[in-house]
């Protein structure tokens, strides 16, 4: 497990998970998760379907009880408190607006449940409908509204209760692309205006990267990494994170040389990349686990030139494929050692235009190359008796004699 709190959290913790697990029968949906979500944060739970992100959200809301572990809201344990006694509110995937009630009555439902005086209900509902920019539809029924408007009503209905945290379960999934982009901006605006804590479940990595203060990447019931979007993009803690967030070239690699002392931003290493040769790389986790390691390079970090560049590190390749992808040109190149590297380049008038079959140089800044652990094996995949914690090799202990770095082929 590489889950770690990689950045300090400002503000008070609103939601805390302590070793929370949830199993449905024999199926482990969430496994020993630790999370801390701070006040005012836009926190995303990101992962493919079935990774446990929705179950995690439903445990915060109170629809599911953890099988083990503790959930705290404002420091108070709420693991067994029913949803109607928790001060959090949810925006559901399909909105779940009450079809027989008007927009006003939908938004007022929560306030009336808590026996708020009628005059205050009216003021707060109108105020919230103004915040979501839907002032003139309060007498309509939900099915007389467009998808985007229904989305706003669902948002107002939850936020009007001034919850400690707003839980959003893939709220933009049902909208088309354009509407989705404008709603993303809307959500950020509303969150900024109200200063509320948002917990946002999504499988869309682009959405998570643009909107979140921090992201928890989930995979098979485990949090693979928790960090800022920059952290997760540039320093993925596992091969899964590297390939799920954006695109990544991932090649098997072995450490041949370790830095004598810890470096800022991770230990600098020299690794033997299969099919490529020896290259410098920065480890994204410290200490690195004992398992297999992968050399990671983002396609957009690669520059293609006809001649060997004077700066950075480079490899000679034969271009095998060039694909037009709108803003970028995707080029695949094969090294002499047989490794394939994908590059995404922005074609310019002066730059080289690679053609399939030509010899070119692919180069990158050595900081761009990362060393990530291959997928962390879930407990059930490990041989019996190995336990959960893999043996860890501290990076700062040199096990191989130092050799000059920067060898190229």
């Amino acid at each position, binding site marked *: 497990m590489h889950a770690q709190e990689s950045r300090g959290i400002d503000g008070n913790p609103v939601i805390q998970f302590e070793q929370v697990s949830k199993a449905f029968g024999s199926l482990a949906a969430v496994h020993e998760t630790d999370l801390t979500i701070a006040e005012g944060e836009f926190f995303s739970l990101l992962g493919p379907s079935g990774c446990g992100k929705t179950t995690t959200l439903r445990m915060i*809301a109170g629809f599911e009880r953890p099988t083990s572990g503790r959930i705290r809201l404002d420091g108070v344990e709420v693991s067994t408190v*029913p949803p*109607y006694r928790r001060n959090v509110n949810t925006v*559901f995937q399909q909105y*779940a607006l*009450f079809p027989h009630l008007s927009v006003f009555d939908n938004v007022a439902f929560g306030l009336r*449940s808590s026996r708020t005086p009628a005059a205050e209900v009216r003021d707060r509902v109108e105020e919230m409908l103004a915040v979501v920019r839907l002032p003139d539809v309060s007498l309509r029924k939900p099915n007389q509204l467009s998808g985007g408007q229904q989305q706003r009503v669902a948002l107002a209905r*939850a936020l009007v209760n001034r919850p400690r945290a707003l839980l959003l379960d893939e709220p933009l999934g049902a909208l088309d692309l354009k509407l989705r982009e404008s709603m993303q901006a809307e959500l950020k605006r509303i969150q900024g205006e109200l200063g509320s804590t948002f917990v946002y479940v999504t499988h869309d990595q682009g959405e998570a990267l643009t909107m979140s203060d921090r992201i928890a990447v989930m995979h098979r019931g485990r949090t693979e990494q928790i960090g800022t979007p920059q952290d997760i993009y540039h320093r993925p803690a596992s091969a899964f994170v590297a390939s799920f967030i954006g695109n990544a070239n991932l090649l098997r690699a072995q450490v041949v040389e370790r830095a004598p002392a810890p470096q800022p931003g991770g230990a600098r290493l020299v690794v033997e990349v299969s099919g490529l040769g020896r290259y410098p790389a920065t480890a994204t986790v410290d200490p690195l686990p004992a398992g297999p390691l992968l050399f990671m390079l983002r396609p957009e970090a690669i520059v293609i030139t006809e001649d060997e560049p004077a700066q950075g590190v480079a490899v000679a390749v034969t271009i095998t494929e060039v694909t037009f992808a709108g803003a970028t040109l995707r080029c695949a190149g094969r090294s002499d050692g047989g490794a394939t590297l994908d590059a995404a380049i922005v074609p310019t008038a002066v730059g080289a235009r690679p053609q399939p079959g030509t010899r070119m140089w692919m180069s990158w800044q050595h900081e761009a190359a990362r060393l990530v652990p291959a997928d962390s094996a879930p407990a059930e995949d490990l041989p019996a008796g190995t336990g959960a914690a893999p043996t860890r090799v501290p990076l700062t202990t040199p096990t191989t004699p130092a050799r000059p770095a920067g060898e190229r082929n």
Partner: protein
Amino acid sequence: MRARLGHLALTAAALGGFAFLFMPIVVIVVFSFNQPVGRFNLVWHSFTLENWLHPFARDDINATVWRSLRVAFVSMVAAGVMGTLVALALVRYRFRGGALVNLLLVLPLTTPEIVMGSSLALLFLDRGVERSFWTIAIAHTMFCVSFVAITVKARLRGFDWTLEDAAMDLGAGPWRTFSRITFPLILPGVLAAALLSFSLSIDDFIITSFVAGEGDTTFPLYVFGAFQRELAPQVNVISTALLLLSVGALAASVLYQRARLR
């Protein structure tokens, strides 16, 4: 030409079919306007509104109609509540024996009424239960529960249960969630089922004949018994009125649901 003939034949066949279906009802309605000679309202004599102006002229008939309405009301409410709860349990929760309950629900619909009636009569006799108004109500409730449960279950199939999650999420406890969200949304189905059980109860003859007490004649029992001695035009009037009532209720429920969908 040929196609035209075929079309005409089809129309004639369809009209014939409808005539076959509705002729008895037409006869009942038409004879409610007859001025009968003698005790049997069977031969058309002359048109009159007399029967409609005095529908409750016969106290003995009134008593049976009133009893039928009371039985129908009691069994509608009892079966409505129980059947709705059964349907909610079956659709909302998975539990051991759910499939068996589903099967048992269909049983009263498929069992011949004569079997149900006689076995109920035997049960009451064996247990020493005096046959009365209440034995009729119990018997009617019994078969109506099945109809209600099945009708409401069909309505619940498309129900969006995340609405209940949403209500609880907004601070509504289980009772408020049911009374403000779930119940109003399933109400059309429950009302349709209740109307169905009302009309099933009011016209039941076979089961009622087994479980009715000595003086507890319902309207259908009265009509059947009286048939041999007399046939008062009030029977036609009241039958027509009951017919209008059930057609009206059906129309109302259809219109109501259309209005809701809009």
